């Protein structure tokens, strides 16, 4: 079956005064996938999500949404042209939960369901399903302000999903949550996706997206630098693996120069561990074990960490810093005006 793309983002650019937040972003979102957007703070993730659903008008480019019928025929329209029709097609949960704190969980869900003109029976059904799906059944009659942080997030997602939209957009849904709550949220997202809902999300917790997302887009300085599956991204951006060694008495200073001569690209001491990054882990492990034995070190622990999205992120943003550093400093008294692409 041919792929169905529901969002088509074409050459989208957006600036706030002199700051170019997005520059020529182009990609498509496939029906039923979980698409993750990662990037540093202020890289334009939220702006991009807002443009995708028509909250913001791009300075350049356009976003098209395709509405598929029962027979699979698609009807595409610009997201800015039909905001009400589009709003039926997505649920949006931002990083700040959005509901009435003085209404109960159920009242909130019912209220927002009515805002989508659902019939009472549909509202009841949807709310019943969602309170179970989100694990809010026991708290459905509790005032929303009395919920815990994680439950508030779940309620927010439930409110976004209450009209059973085909697309769910989550902007930093796990921000400020502890790992346990984060896992609960991701679990909910998975369950929603399993019902056929397309999920677009952004997050700082890259490793958690690793197993969740079908594809991940990387925003860097307002540019979509890459968009691919997590595995392909990892392969593309980081071939190095991280070897962690702990030995006794831990006289690593003598080891480091010798390891540098091997294929280790970076060696550093982290507490009682020696951390070695290398593209040839098997060879390095062999060399390390040999060196330890020669040095009379007793091996306590050895681990090999495969690359993850954090590594990809670090690699990409390290490149950015390097590019920045490579820029020639201005000459005193006569600083040159740098060419800018923002046209300002």
């Amino acid at each position, binding site marked *: 079956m041919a792929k169905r793309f529901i969002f088509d983002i074409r050459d989208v650019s957006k600036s*706030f005064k002199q700051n170019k937040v997005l520059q020529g972003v182009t990609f498509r979102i496939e029906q039923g996938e979980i698409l993750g957007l990662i990037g540093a703070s202020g890289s334009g*993730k939220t702006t991009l999500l807002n443009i995708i659903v028509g909250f913001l008008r791009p300075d350049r480019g356009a976003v098209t949404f395709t509405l598929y019928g029962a027979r699979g025929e698609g009807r595409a329209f610009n997201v800015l042209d039909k905001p009400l029709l589009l709003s039926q097609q997505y649920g949006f949960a931002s990083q700040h939960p959005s*509901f009435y704190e003085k209404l109960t969980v159920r009242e909130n869900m019912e209220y927002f369901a009515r805002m989508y*003109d659902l019939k009472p029976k549909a509202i009841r059904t949807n709310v019943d399903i969602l309170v179970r799906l989100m694990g809010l059944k026991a708290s459905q009659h509790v005032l929303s302000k009395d919920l815990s942080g994680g439950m508030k997030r779940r309620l927010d997602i439930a409110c976004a999903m209450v009209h059973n939209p085909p697309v769910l957009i989550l902007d930093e849904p796990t921000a400020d949550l502890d790992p346990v709550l984060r896992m609960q949220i991701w679990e909910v997202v998975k369950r929603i996706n399993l019902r056929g809902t397309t999920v677009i999300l952004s997050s700082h917790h890259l490793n958690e997206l690793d197993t969740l997302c079908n594809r991940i887009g990387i925003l860097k300085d307002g540019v979509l630098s890459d968009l691919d599956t997590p595995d392909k991204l990892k392969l593309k951006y980081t071939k190095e693996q991280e070897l962690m060694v702990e030995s006794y008495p831990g006289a690593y200073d003598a080891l480091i120069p010798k390891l540098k001569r091997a294929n280790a690209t970076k060696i550093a001491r982290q507490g009682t561990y020696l951390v070695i990054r290398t593209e040839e882990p098997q060879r390095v492990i062999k060399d390390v074990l040999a060196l330890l034995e020669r040095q009379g070190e007793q091996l306590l622990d050895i681990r090999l960490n495969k690359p993850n999205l954090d590594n990809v992120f670090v690699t990409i943003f390290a490149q950015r810093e390097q590019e920045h550093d490579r820029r020639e*400093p201005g000459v005193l008294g006569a600083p040159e005006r740098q060419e800018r692409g923002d046209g300002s």
Partner: protein
Amino acid sequence: MKAWSVVAKNLKLLFRSKETAFTIVFGPLLIILLVSAAYTGGGDAKVHVGVYAPEYTPLADQLIDALKEKGYLVSVFANETNCLGRIETGGLHTCILFPEDFRVKENGSNTVTFVVDYSRVNLVHEIISGLSAEFNVQKSELSAGLATTVLERVAVAQREVREGIALGNALDNDVAMMSEQLVAGRSSINAVDVNVSFNDLKEIRGRVTGLAGLVTEMKTESLEGLEAAREALQEVKDVVDDNETEELIRETLVLLENATSEIQEIAKRAPESVTLVNYVIDDAAAAMDAVKTRFGLLVNASRNADERIAASQARLEQAARSLTTLRGKLAHADAVLQETLGMSATGLASPIETRIQAVNAEQDNVSFTYPYILLLVIMFLGLMLNSTLIVMDKTSTAAFRNFTTATRDEYHILLSFVTTFLILLVQCLAILCISAFFLGAPLFTNFGVSLIIIIIAITLFSFLGMIIGYLSGTQEGAMIASLSLGSVLLFISNLVLPLEAMNWVVGIVSPYNPYVVLSELLKQSMLFELGFAYVPGKVGLLVLATLVLFLLILAIQKSFKASYFQRRSKDLAAEAFTPGAARNSKPLLLGGREVKDLFDLLEVLDAMTRADFEAVVTGAENPIATWVKRELREKRLGRKLSTRSKEVMILALDKHLKTVTKKLAKR
């Protein structure tokens, strides 16, 4: 210290909210400014007076002209109903009703009726006193005129009386003189001796002596006559056989015998009697002579008295004429005084009386001011409730979700309005019911029209409150702004001071003050039971204003919604930029270090010696300011850093960074 900290915190909270700070600092100033502007330069109230007279007499015209001269706007009406109707619709402040045949009357006063609208509590007494003062002036002038007339009449009467007195004096002399003459006449008459003795009557004596022969002659003839009569009777006796007649004849013959005897006896005594008579006549003649003498004297005296009486008669005739004149004068004086007495003391003192009459039946101040107070409640509640609700909604965490649901913005706005509308309507009805119960005022008369006005008022003030809500960032800001707007609308209305007494600018603006328009409409409906037919223009204007406000709300709401998403995105994007750094900026080499942002700059400047600084920043160029302007695009800061003083530069930089950091922290 703790107390100061709390106060400082509170002040910071208040002043860091722009609208609160604005309202706290400028709100009172604005209110004072507006109110001062409104209340100064107004001078006297511009009172619009309607007049109606069944007949526009010179006195009525005189009073109308006097009112015009005093600066009143005077409209003359052809009938009373129109005049009173204009008060009810607010077109007039008072209607002056002149009585029929309005003229200065000597035998009574004219009552001029001032019909006023007591619901204009703060103006009505001023109008009454102002007009009364003007009428009092006119009354005084008329009263003075009447008094002058009285005095003139009294003067005429006095003149007449004085002339009468003069005539009386003359009459007195005449009478005195007449009296003297009469006394003299009487003396003359009294002087006449009327005792007369008749001792000398010689002629009569001769005649009496001749009487003796006559008596003898008479005796003979009488005896002969008697004898003839006896013989005749004897003959009759012989022929008569009637006893009674014979008896009668015999008696008559006896009587004739007796008469014959007496005549013979008299004839025997006649000479003696004549002698006696002669003696008497002699005495009478003597008396007659004396009488003649006396009568001669009497004639003289009488002649003298006649002359005197003739003179007295002339005098009396003169006195009679004087008396006629005097009577005429006194009658005139009497008539004049009668006329004067006929004048009414009240009319003289107060030729025009004024009467104050209320155009509306209700007489207590609560009833008069009730529409204003009810509108006041609607205004403040409408403004505050709606602004608060809008701020609550837009600043609530649910705002984002409301904006993203498949519900039109207009729907949200309308339903926000409906919510507050219902609350306000229920409150109004409750207030009306309670007031009607406790005040006993007929508040439900003409209720249909009143209800529509109340609905328009609720709608209009709700929309105004919603606009305030959309323009305010915080609830306290919205509340203060609502109170400020309500206060301004209140001050520029009739409730505190009459609009007529305010500045002319207010006069121009006030017809567009919704509180003024609606409260007047409600008053006309509640107190005068007027329908919309009387004020179609105002109602149309209000409906139009309501529609405009609704469209304005839609525009503001859409603008707010657009800026809401932009702000969210901008805030998040701003986090990426370190304060004082711009993307893709070229670093600056300063003091052997690479400066990437303002924090770096501050650090490097702080570490630089004065000599190093002066080597970099010369009079000719300031590479630091140039870098900030060109690379960081902070032109304003660049200007502040255009200094040769290291300390000034550090202070400016430090201040700027603090400000920027605070702004980011607030986001």
